[in-house]
């Protein structure tokens, strides 16, 4: 089975000369299809950078990135846009939704942008799974933070993308809302075969994943499969990686 996304010896350098920062130093990673992958690491270790490169939001300095069969590296802006539209879903930490659109419109936005008709059956499934059926006509300002993140999840899922990238999706939520989101992401992987890559600081969040990849100073330093929260915490300790507090 081929990887849903793949990075091969990816380097990312910001700036030049004195101000140069090497955010990624030769990262190679295969994101397995139908699996839930978590990326952990201390603040500034390059998690977001890696995710942006994988998702076609940022270009790499060296190396290659692929999503499914498609080569990401070297695409033009138009090509990247098309790729994101067709193959990628996003969940950010906050400000995920357009305030002028209702929950339902936000969920269907990527499909609308792509000019695709939603698959009604799948749409209903998604709505029911995230438990938003009675909130569809609300504006983001009328929803709680947790509900907003659920709408963001539903949006990412609605177009059944090749991969969903989530950057600290529970970073701004209390533990209960966070748990809701995580179990929802977990279900969409287990039950519907969705591929998800999630950046997180939280060992507990990471424990929902099938696999945890640890980043340190721009390099992959270790990984865990089918982790428990304790196992993740132990690993962090043993790697001597100080986990930054969520912002």
């Amino acid at each position: 089975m081929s990887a849903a996304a793949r990075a091969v010896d990816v380097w990312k350098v910001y700036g030049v000369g004195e101000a140069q920062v090497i955010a990624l130093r030769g990262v190679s990673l295969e994101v397995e299809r139908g699996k839930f992958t978590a990326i952990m690491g201390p603040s500034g270790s390059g998690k977001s950078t890696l995710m942006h490169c994988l998702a076609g939001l940022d270009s790499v300095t060296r190396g290659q990135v692929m999503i499914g069969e498609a080569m990401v590296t070297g695409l033009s802006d138009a090509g990247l846009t098309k790729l994101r539209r067709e193959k990628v879903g996003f969940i950010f930490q906050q400000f995920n939704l357009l305030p002028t659109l209702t929950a339902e419109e936000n969920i269907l936005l990527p499909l609308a942008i792509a000019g695709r008709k939603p698959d009604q059956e799948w749409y209903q499934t998604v709505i029911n799974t995230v438990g938003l059926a009675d909130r569809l006509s609300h504006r983001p300002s009328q929803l709680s933070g947790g509900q907003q993140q659920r709408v963001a999840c539903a949006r990412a899922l609605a177009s059944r993308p090749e991969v969903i990238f989530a950057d600290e999706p529970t970073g701004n939520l209390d533990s209960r809302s966070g748990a809701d989101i995580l179990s929802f992401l977990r279900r969409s992987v287990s039950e519907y075969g969705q591929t998800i890559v999630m950046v997180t600081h939280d060992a507990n969040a990471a424990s929902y994943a099938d696999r945890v990849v640890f980043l340190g100073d721009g390099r992959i330093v270790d990984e865990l499969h089918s982790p428990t929260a304790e196992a993740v915490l132990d690993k962090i300790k043993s790697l001597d990686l100080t986990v930054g507090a969520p912002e």
Partner: protein
Amino acid sequence: MLKAMLRGLFAHKLRLILSALAIILGTAFMSAAFVSGDTISKGFTDLFSTINEDIDAQVTAKSDVPSLEGGGGEALVTKVVPQDVADKLKGLDGAESVTPQVVSDGARVIGKDGKVVASNGPPRLGGAWPANINEDPNLELRLGTGPTAPDQVVLSANLAKSAGVTVGDKVEIITLQPRRTFTVSGISGYKGGRDSLGGETFVYFTLPVAQELMLGTTGVYSNVDIKAAPGVSQETLKQRAQAVVGDGYTVRTGEETSQEQASGIQSFLSIFSTGLAVFGFLALFTGAFLIFNTFSMLIAQRTRELALYRSFGANRGQVLRSVLLESLLLGLAASIVGLLIGFGLGWLLTRLLRSTGFPGGALVISPWVVIGTLFAGTIITVLSALAPALRASRVAPIEAMRDAAKPDKPLRRLTTFGLILMAVGIALLILKGTKTLEDNVLTLGGGCLFIFIGAVMVAPALSRPITGTIGKLVDWATPGRLGVRNTGRNPRRTALTAAALMIGVTLATGAGVFASSVKAGLSDIFASELNADLILQTDFTAGPTAGFQPALMDQVRQIPGVSTAAALQTDGVKLANRDEFVVATDAKAAQTLFTLEPREGEIRELNSGEIILNDGFATKTGLKVGDTATMQTARGEAKDLKVIGILASSQVVTNPLISPADASGFRSPLAQQAYIKVTDPAQIEPVRTQLKTLVADNPEVSVSDPSAQIKQATTFLDLMLNVLNVLLGLTILVAVLGVINTLLLSVFERTRELGLLRAIGMNRSRMGWMITVEAVLISVFGALLGMVLGTALGITLVKIFGGNFLKLTIPWGYLIATLVLAVIAGLIAALLPAWRAARLNVLQAIAYE
């Protein structure tokens, strides 16, 4: 503290530039108008005092009859100084020299093309060549010799050039007499290489010929110029001359003469420069909306920053002062730039006018223009920043901790207040608008202003429903839908941006409705009341002395196929102590031609000493049938006229009618118009041909017909409307700046959101599309508001001015064109913000906080 807050202003300086641009445009236009007006006006004053250098007192005959030209000096001399009065002045005590002059308007030269050489405004003077040209302080002979025989003339250099003639050529000239042929004996100019003083042309005859042709009879003068002996003051000379000539004559000092001569031109100039300044002010007013919006947005964005200052202990006054100081600095800086640009524009304008013959020297910059412009620009900026500044001062320290995005305040109070204002305005119009116009300019203006301000306040409540409805057109695609939603998201901001556009569009639409109603009214009148098939028409630029002999009508009536014909001789007189135009004509024929009905008395052919009043004049004066009214004509004696009839209201005849026998004192013995009815339509063309041969030798008279007249009036109206719209374009330009400004700021505010859209797959062109939809919606909204208000304004104008002379007509084509222009304006306004949005760096946008 203040320093730190002011630094906030300069951090946003790029965003302030657009609003500054609005102030710059307005102040530049205003100061350019005033500066060029002053410069030209000074030029004329200087010029006239040079010309009148040798005149210490000037004697003219007194005239009670109103000038036809509005201003002080009328170039057409109708009251003359007879020889004996001139002779009495000879040897006046304290006079060094006494020079009787002949100069009057109305010497029209026929050019090589057979047409009369046009002057487009300045007079076409004719007069006597000075007895001794070498002693003349101003005039000089450039070529040839002075006129020595009755058939010789000297032409001014500019006239010779436009007529295409030179010394030795034959030239035909129309004066009070029909065309006559002369030989050009010389070409004249003014000393210092000047061809004319202010674009006027001059024909010099020998003295007796000038007297006969320009003043109507030999042995009379237009004025007597007196030069004082050394040591005699102008005032003394004036008093002595007055004592000699008596009450029937006006004596002015040389200085007064210069002022009198310049005043006509200056009143024209001041209308011109005030007009331009009004448009500059309108642009400033439009700019006020832009500034209000900019400051509101900047303050909304800086809420946290300001709250931070407040939490550090800055008090409300400090915050208020800092914002007001920002606006003061901005307004002052922009006004200074505008003023300087205005000077440049003014300089260009005076150069341009000078090349067409206007006088002018160095730019005249009066301190009042500088102070006025700076004051207007600055005060408008500060006033429009006041409300946002007050809001800023109410920012509570706690807001530093809160999320900047606050829900909108409800609009109900604003809308209610706006509706009340509009109601008051409408009430003012209804209550007062039923009276005559003159008494109520203030009430009407106030009413319109109330309605306008009310509309601005109601606009936010309308913005969402209206843009939402128009938005249905672009709702089918995601970028369109998002654009519509964004437009509805901040109703105040959308409405204010649109309101700036509304100003210009309101005025343009109002003018459009008025113009089209005038046109429709005219056609209606011509169709219903005018019973003529052909018209003899004198070129209305030819001046008050152009026309044809009324006796020509005898020949017209002889033409086979003509059933009725009447010539109209119109002139301004003093009638029953009022300035009024009267028409001398065959009233019996006029009754048929203009379908006149008597309201009182009768309509019949008038005898000398009789008058028929029009409805309006009778109402104004309260004169009844059987009463007498005294008429003073320009050249004749006062005469009592008996009212024999009063016309029922008519749209064609709006002046009293008198007998041609009583028109002998008119400025011109000629008729300006004739209306001709034929026996049957088949006769129109044969009669037209005959008429053409009759007037073939008169280049100022042409054969026309009602439809051609309508067309001419329509063309003229369209021209006026176009000029107005070009000037209103300035306010539209400012409004477009406003749309650009609003969108740039909102693109900036929405960086994060736009980044999100890009991340989930919206491409650049669709981002641009979305912003374009917003821009177009705002401008169309503004245009729609303006069109509704403007139509209302037009209707009000028509109702007030109109009576039934105007037929209310909505110019749909014009409105549609306005809408299309609004769409184009929106598209243009979208360019920069759309480009910004499309170029957005996705990653930075997402990371943006």
